[in-house]
Structure formats: structure tokens, C-alpha cells
């Protein structure tokens, strides 16, 4: 029943994140019903509208922060609460605890990244009278899912070091911002467009048509693998740290 | 079975238990064939370690006073007759009462009498003391 424990302990954050994303999607479609196309841009394509409100601008940063917060918790969090001893004296290895929590979190990130894909293509025709291709939202979902997983595992790594709720959350807000500044100011990072998460998740390198803002290019499967590798690496580091900690 | 154990007296608890059960058997409070509480039940009732009860029952069984049967508990042995010992004890009690009255009339206080008795018991044989 470790899966149940992992679910219960992350449930609130997951549901809140899902609610935030749902709210964004609903605002979009209802907003579109009310005033799309906007009077000052009558020939704005719906796909551009969707991009601006869901996949572009600050939304990648928002998603990264939510994913990172999802990574918090774990044994260091149980320490001040007083249940670390109970969890650690169960006949399980620490590795198993890590793996269950990590997999649960990654599944949650995947589901969150699919929220727009589930809502926008299905609701747009009924509510906004517009259509949006499912394939587009699935591709964006994949971009969000992969970088989002890296963000989750960074939060997971922080959680193996810091147990305070405030410290953890603060780190999850500061880290993406600091990272973004670092990437934009360091020339070394310029060689890897995927290193800039906002760039990557909003699909900039793969968008051929600036007007319609639709993903056209082939998806960067190698980059996906690299990102998955980085995420796994962070989990492995967190596992190693936890293995040698005293509680 | 009503028993009182004193954890801070100078006697191991199992010794106190043996003495009290033995006394009960010899004064007829426990009759031959009557059942004693099982080890677990008695330990839980007295809130003492089961090892204490095990040791006591084991020694009593060795002395032939009780029989421990697996599964059905412990029983007072039907083997010995209790009367002579009970009578001896009643006589001894009378003699102690007489001595105490005499000492008190001589002006010796209760605490002093207690101390004299304890000191005398210490000077008696070590073997007798360890029982």
C-alpha cells in the first residue's frame, strides 16, 4: 500500500495543479466564446489564441513550478511530522520508497500535461465554436511532460535535502527563475535550445508557421531521451542521498 | 487466586510467588486438585514477567506441590496432606504473638522488634536465607 500512501501525500498538490490547469483551459474556451476573435486582431487564428493562453508566455514556468512542487514530500518531510521512524521501520528498503514516490509523481506530471489535450480539442467546438487539432495538443503535452518530468525530479531532489514546507516551496519558485536567468545569460546553454524550458515547452524550435503557431517539425525524440535520462539521474542522486541519511 | 508481589522487597518476585502459593496450599486455602491460573493469565493478572511465573511454577512442581499440565493449566497436587504443616504454622503464629506482646510490655517499639527480627534472620544460615 505504498502507492496509496504516495497518492494520499501528493493528492492535494496534484488536484490543485489539475484545478489550475482546468481553470486555464475553461477560461480560454469561455473567453473565446465571449470575445474571439479579438476586435483588434480579427484574423487571429484560434491556434494562436490557444498557444498564447495555454502553451506560451508564462504557462511553461507555471507548469514547471507546479511539477517541482509535486516532487516535494518524502522522508525528510515526515521527520518534523514524526512519522519517519514508522515508515523506516516497515520491512521495505529506502530505495523502494523512493521509486514508488517518484513513479507516482511522474504519472501525475503526465496526467497534468494531458489536461489541456483532453479539454481544449473536445470543448472548443461546443463552447467556442472553434476547432483545435488533437494532434497539436498531444504534441504540446509531450513537450510539457518531458521537461515537466525534469522539473519534478528537481523538486524530488530538493525534498531529499529539505523537509520544511516553506523552504521546499520557496525553492520550487526560486529554482525555475534562477535557472531561466542562468540559461539566458550563459552562452554555453545557447547551443542547446531545449535547455531553455520556456522555449522548449512552448514548442518554439518546432513551430514552422508563426501565424498559426502550429507544430510542424519532427518531434525531438533524442532530446526526449536525454531529458528522461536527466530526470532519472536526479532520482538516482536523491536515492543515494536518502540511503545514507540518518533520521 | 489473590496474590501480592512487592518488587522492591529483598526477594526475587518468583520467590515471593512460591512462598505465597506454598503458604496457601499448606493452610488449606488451595485444596488438592484445585486449579491455578495458567502462566499467561497469572502474569497478566499480576502484571509481572511470564518468566517469573514460569520459574515459580517450575520450582513448585519440583517440590511436588503442583502439577503443570500442557494445555489445561496448573493444579494443586493431590499428593501431600496439608494438616500437620498448617497446625505447625498456627502454633508458630501463637508463639510469635506471645513473644511480641512480651517485648512490647518491656518497652520495645514495633520498629525495633522488626529490626531485631530482620537482623536475626540475616545471621541465620545463608542457605536458609536464599530460599
Amino acid at each position: 500500500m505504498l502507492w496509496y500512501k504516495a497518492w494520499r501525500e501528493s493528492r492535494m498538490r496534484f488536484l490543485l495543479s489539475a484545478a489550475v490547469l482546468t481553470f486555464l483551459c475553461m477560461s480560454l474556451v469561455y473567453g473565446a466564446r465571449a470575445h474571439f476573435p479579438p476586435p483588434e486582431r480579427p484574423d487571429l487564428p484560434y491556434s494562436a489564441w490557444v498557444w498564447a493562453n495555454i502553451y506560451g508566455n508564462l504557462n511553461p514556468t507555471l507548469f514547471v513550478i507546479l511539477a517541482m512542487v509535486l516532487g516535494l514530500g518524502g522522508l525528510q518531510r515526515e521527520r518534523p511530522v514524526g512519522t519517519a521512524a514508522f515508515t523506516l521501520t516497515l520491512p521495505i528498503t529506502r530505495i523502494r520508497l523512493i521509486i514508488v514516490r517518484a513513479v507516482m509523481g511522474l504519472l501525475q506530471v503526465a496526467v497534468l500535461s494531458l489536461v489541456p489535450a483532453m479539454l481544449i480539442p473536445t470543448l472548443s467546438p461546443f463552447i467556442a465554436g472553434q476547432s483545435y487539432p488533437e494532434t497539436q495538443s498531444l504534441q504540446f503535452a509531450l513537450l510539457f511532460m518531458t521537461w515537466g518530468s525534469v522539473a519534478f525530479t528537481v523538486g524530488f531532489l530538493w525534498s531529499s535535502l529539505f523537509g520544511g514546507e516553506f523552504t521546499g516551496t520557496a525553492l520550487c519558485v526560486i529554482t525555475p527563475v534562477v535557472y531561466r536567468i542562468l540559461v539566458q545569460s550563459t552562452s554555453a546553454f545557447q547551443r542547446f535550445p531545449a535547455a531553455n524550458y520556456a522555449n522548449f515547452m512552448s514548442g518554439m524550435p518546432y513551430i514552422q508557421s508563426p501565424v498559426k503557431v502550429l507544430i510542424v517539425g519532427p518531434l525531438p525524440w533524442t532530446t526526449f531521451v536525454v531529458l528522461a535520462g536527466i530526470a532519472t539521474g536526479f532520482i538516482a542522486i536523491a536515492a543515494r542521498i536518502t540511503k545514507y541519511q540518518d533520521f | 487466586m489473590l496474590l501480592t508481589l512487592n518488587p522492591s522487597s529483598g526477594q526475587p518476585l518468583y520467590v515471593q510467588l512460591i512462598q505465597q502459593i506454598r503458604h496457601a496450599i499448606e493452610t488449606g486455602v488451595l485444596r488438592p486438585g484445585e486449579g491455578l491460573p495458567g502462566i499467561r493469565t497469572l502474569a497478566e493478572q499480576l502484571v509481572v514477567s511470564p518468566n517469573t511465573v514460569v520459574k515459580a511454577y517450575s520450582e513448585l512442581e519440583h517440590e511436588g506441590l503442583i502439577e503443570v499440565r500442557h494445555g489445561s493449566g496448573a493444579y494443586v497436587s493431590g499428593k501431600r496432606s496439608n494438616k500437620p504443616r498448617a497446625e505447625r504454622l498456627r502454633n508458630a503464629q501463637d508463639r510469635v504473638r506471645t513473644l511480641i506482646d512480651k517485648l512490647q510490655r518491656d518497652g520495645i517499639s514495633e520498629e525495633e522488634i522488626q529490626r531485631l527480627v530482620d537482623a536475626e534472620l540475616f545471621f541465620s544460615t545463608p542457605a536458609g536465607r536464599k530460599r
Partner: protein
Amino acid sequence: MSNRWVIETYDLTKRYGKLEAVRKLNLRVGASRITGFLGRNGAGKSSTIKMLLGISRPSSGSGVVLGRPMDNAQQSRESRRHIAYVAEDKQTYAYMTVGQIIAFTRSFYGDWDLNIEQRLLRQFALPFPRKVKALSKGMRTKLALLLALARRPELLILDEPSEGLDPVSIEELLQALITAAADGTTVFFSSHQIAEVERVADHVCIIDRGRLVLETSLDRIRQDYRHVTFGFSTEPPPVDFTGESVASVRIDGRQIAMMATRNADAIIARLQRLGATSVEAAPVSLREVFLAAVKEESDALV
């Protein structure tokens, strides 16, 4: 009573920065017994227990629990299948209900006994649908005991189990320990409540400043330890007690008082030959043994 050791430590040491909480501890806890673990605050009891359970790692030294080395993750996990632990604050997941935490814990142990679970649920009157965070400390203790005992563990370790409990709850706790011991579980519990330990324990280990200062059975204390006070009608002669099993000798005027740990009668005979005119002997309580043990790390106490 078997002669097996369920816990053995070899020069076990734990350092927190510069502070040595546990210093070359050589602990031995025998099987099928109730052993009390006494020590002052900060003496190293909790640190020791955490190392035994694999919650923290020794700085040096080693230990064996239920025949398996305690600093190996896999072996420690194996041992924990047969060990039950009740922590001092008895906390479990606040967001789960009593029913859920029982189901949760049950899922990890193949030897869980549903009959015992049902019996303890009734005996402790634990409210199934209530959340753990709404339980009083007494109820949390009972819940922790249920989770520990419903599987007949080989070893039950408790850290200050009666902390924060009212006398009725303490009595119920002690009875639960006795029931566990009657089922063959070895019980090892740390406590400040010397009176409780004196009632239920077979053996006692006293730790002070990270070291084991005394390990003995309570029967031995009751049988062999004695306070003896000698009175002399003249100035008492100088007596050399080295080599004797004697601790805390005090001389005041024409009296000599001491705690003998063995052969009190031989010491009494000796001092009588030296001219003692009065002798008073009294049993020694566990509290007095403890206080003497932690005041001076005397070899004579062993």
C-alpha cells in the same frame, strides 16, 4: 528461556559532530525476556535504538539483531519483518483513519494475525473510522501496540512507551507487554519510569554517557544487593574494600554504610570480626541501583 542473544552490539559508536552520543557500546539482550533499558536524558538510549532499527547508521562499530548485521540494508529489512517498534510519540499517518492505517500496515507483513487484530481492536476499543490525527495519545499508543502485536513479532522494541500516558493507560500498556512476552516475543523497552521496569522486567541494561554501565537481572538485584549500615562503639577501623563487591561506601562518625552487590553476609561477618556492634541490612531498589550506577562508573556494580 533460551540463551540466544537477540541484540548484540560491538563497540557501537555514534557521533553527532563532536558529540559522542554512544561510545563503544557493547549491549547484549537475551531472547524470551523482558529487558528494560534505563538511562538519563541524553544517555544514548534513543540513538542506540535508532541504530538497531536501521533508522540511523553507526559512526563505527557494529551490531547484530536477530542474527543479522544491522548495517546492511537488505539484512536489516529482513530483520524488520520480525521486529515491531513503538516510537516515543507513537505517530502514524495523520491523514489515515484507524482502519486505513491497520490495512496499510497489514499489507507489509505476511504473518499478520487477523484474530489478534480483532481481539486487540475490541480490547482497546479503537474507533475504526476516526482519523489518526484526532486520536488522543493514549489511543495512539494502543493503536501503535496493535500494529506491533498483531503479527507476533520476535522482538518488540519500545522507546519510552509510557511517556505522556495516564496511569490507567500505563497499566494497559504493561499488560500488553506481558501478553506479548507470554507469546514468546522478546521485549526491549527504554524507560524513565523505574518503578514500571522494576515490576515487569526480567533484566535491565543501564546506559550512561553512551556506555553500558550495568547489565543484570532484577532477581539478582533483589537477592544479592543489600544496603548495609554498620555501627561501631569506637572509631571505625580503616577497612579496605578493594576486590569486594561493594559500591558507594560512606563513612559518617561511627558508622559505615555501603551497598553490597554480592556476598553481603561475608562482608557482614568480616566487619563484625573487626568490631561492628550493630548491623542493619535492607534491600536495594532499582532506583537506588540506577542512581549509583550513573553517578560513578564503578566496576563493582557488575
